């Protein structure tokens, strides 16, 4: 008996009792925990409630066939990540091909060969484990939607032009604040602050792609494209400032000093892509728009407004946003003055 390195929870869905017995017994011999379902309907119910690592699904079944179960799983965001291996007779290969095209992980023909069974099941489990890890990793800097998109389309270390909005934020005079309190308190404060800011950004479909000290950079409209990325970015900024007010009220109650932040947003064309290595990569955006967003954030100190946006961002906002035209500003390193607006 060979025990697989990691016992997994598997579900065998087959209307044929002999098949169920052979498959579940073979998989148990390989060290897995196995449950069975007698038809497609029962199978789908168990998949929904059972948190399985892998499903082996027969195609030809009464009530609900394997094809219908597969479709239902792929449509469900909560079930989509469970790998499904189709099991079928040799002469049903047409149907199997259709299932694999639709999104089944793999297939096995019956009668199942034990060596192939082990190889396919372990390969699928390993792929799932890697995907789960990636998903966890992606979630630390992206929304669930972005993470799912990255998992679906994969990510290559190559760039492309995108139209997006870039946001920079920074805490005002954080160094002074940090010097006046205990280091652990400072880290605690930062963590609580970042949790609120991440929430506001992710909630509006943005992805935080860089954090440096007390500052962060977020991108809206890439890697997942949103037509209304400008509006989303500005909404996130407004939400951040609102959250900060609540946060400051809490700090006041604890007798601590307030945090002030600056938010700058610029929109336009930029080069975006993953930079780094396959093992460690970040989603980066490069270009004038990115530099401008950073300059706008710095300019909040001079303009004495917490939230500044450029003209391109301004032009993408619906009528119900109120902004104040602050006129043209010539930023360092730019030849042309840029019209800036304060979000009210």
């Amino acid at each position, binding site marked *: 008996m060979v025990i697989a390195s990691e016992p997994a929870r598997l579900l065998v869905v087959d209307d*044929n*009792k*002999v098949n169920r017995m052979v498959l579940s*017994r073979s998989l148990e*011999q390989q060290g897995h925990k196995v449950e069975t379902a007698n038809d497609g309907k029962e199978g789908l119910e168990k998949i929904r409630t059972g948190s399985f690592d892998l499903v082996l699904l027969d195609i030809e079944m009464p009530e609900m066939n394997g094809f219908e179960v597969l479709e239902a799983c792929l449509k469900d965001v909560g079930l989509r990540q469970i790998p499904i291996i189709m099991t079928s007779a040799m002469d049903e290969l047409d149907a199997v091909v259709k299932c694999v095209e639709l999104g089944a992980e793999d297939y096995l023909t*019956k*009668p199942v*060969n*034990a060596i192939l069974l082990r190889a396919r099941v372990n390969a699928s489990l390993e792929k799932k484990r890697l995907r789960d890890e990636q998903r966890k990793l992606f979630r630390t800097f992206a929304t669930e939607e972005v993470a799912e998109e990255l998992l679906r389309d994969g990510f290559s270390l190559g760039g492309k032009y995108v139209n997006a909005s870039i946001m920079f934020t920074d805490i005002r005079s954080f160094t002074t604040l940090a010097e006046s309190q205990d280091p652990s308190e400072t880290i605690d404060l930062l963590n609580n602050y970042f949790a609120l800011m991440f929430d506001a950004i992710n909630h509006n479909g943005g992805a935080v792609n860089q954090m440096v000290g007390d500052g962060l950079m977020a991108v809206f409209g890439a890697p997942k494209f949103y037509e209304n990325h400008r509006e989303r970015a500005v909404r996130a900024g407004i939400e951040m400032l609102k959250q900060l007010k609540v946060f400051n009220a809490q700090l006041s109650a604890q007798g601590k000093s307030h945090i002030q932040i600056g938010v700058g947003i610029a929109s336009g064309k930029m080069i975006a892509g993953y930079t780094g290595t396959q093992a460690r990569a970040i989603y980066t955006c490069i270009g004038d728009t990115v530099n401008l967003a950073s300059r706008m954030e710095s300019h909040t100190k001079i303009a004495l407004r917490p939230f500044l946006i450029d003209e391109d961002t301004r032009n993408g906002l619906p009528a119900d946003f109120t902004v104040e035209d602050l006129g043209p500003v010539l930023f360092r390193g730019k030849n042309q003055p840029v019209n800036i607006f304060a979000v009210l």
Partner: protein
Amino acid sequence: MSSQIDMNTFNDLKDATGADFISELIDTFLDDAPSLIQQMQDALAKTDVDSFRRAAHSMKSNAATFGAMELSAQAKELESIARGNNLVVGNKIQVMNETLSRVASDLNALK
């Protein structure tokens, strides 16, 4: 030694599921098989093509699992007939039933 059973397939099955499990598996198949034939006969009487096809499909699959190749081929032929949407089967069910008896005695000897 066994004329109905392909021993390579049978031994693979035994290895995969464990030697102590094979008797239980054979019993399950042999308990089930007559009811599959009954299901085909009932379906034939009612010209229920779907039910006929499913029973033939199960027989084909189970026979192949144990290496009963002739039985599996006969069931496959009946399944194909049902897929063609007509149930003109002549004495094919009877012939399959006779094959099943030989398979049963061979499998019982292998327990």
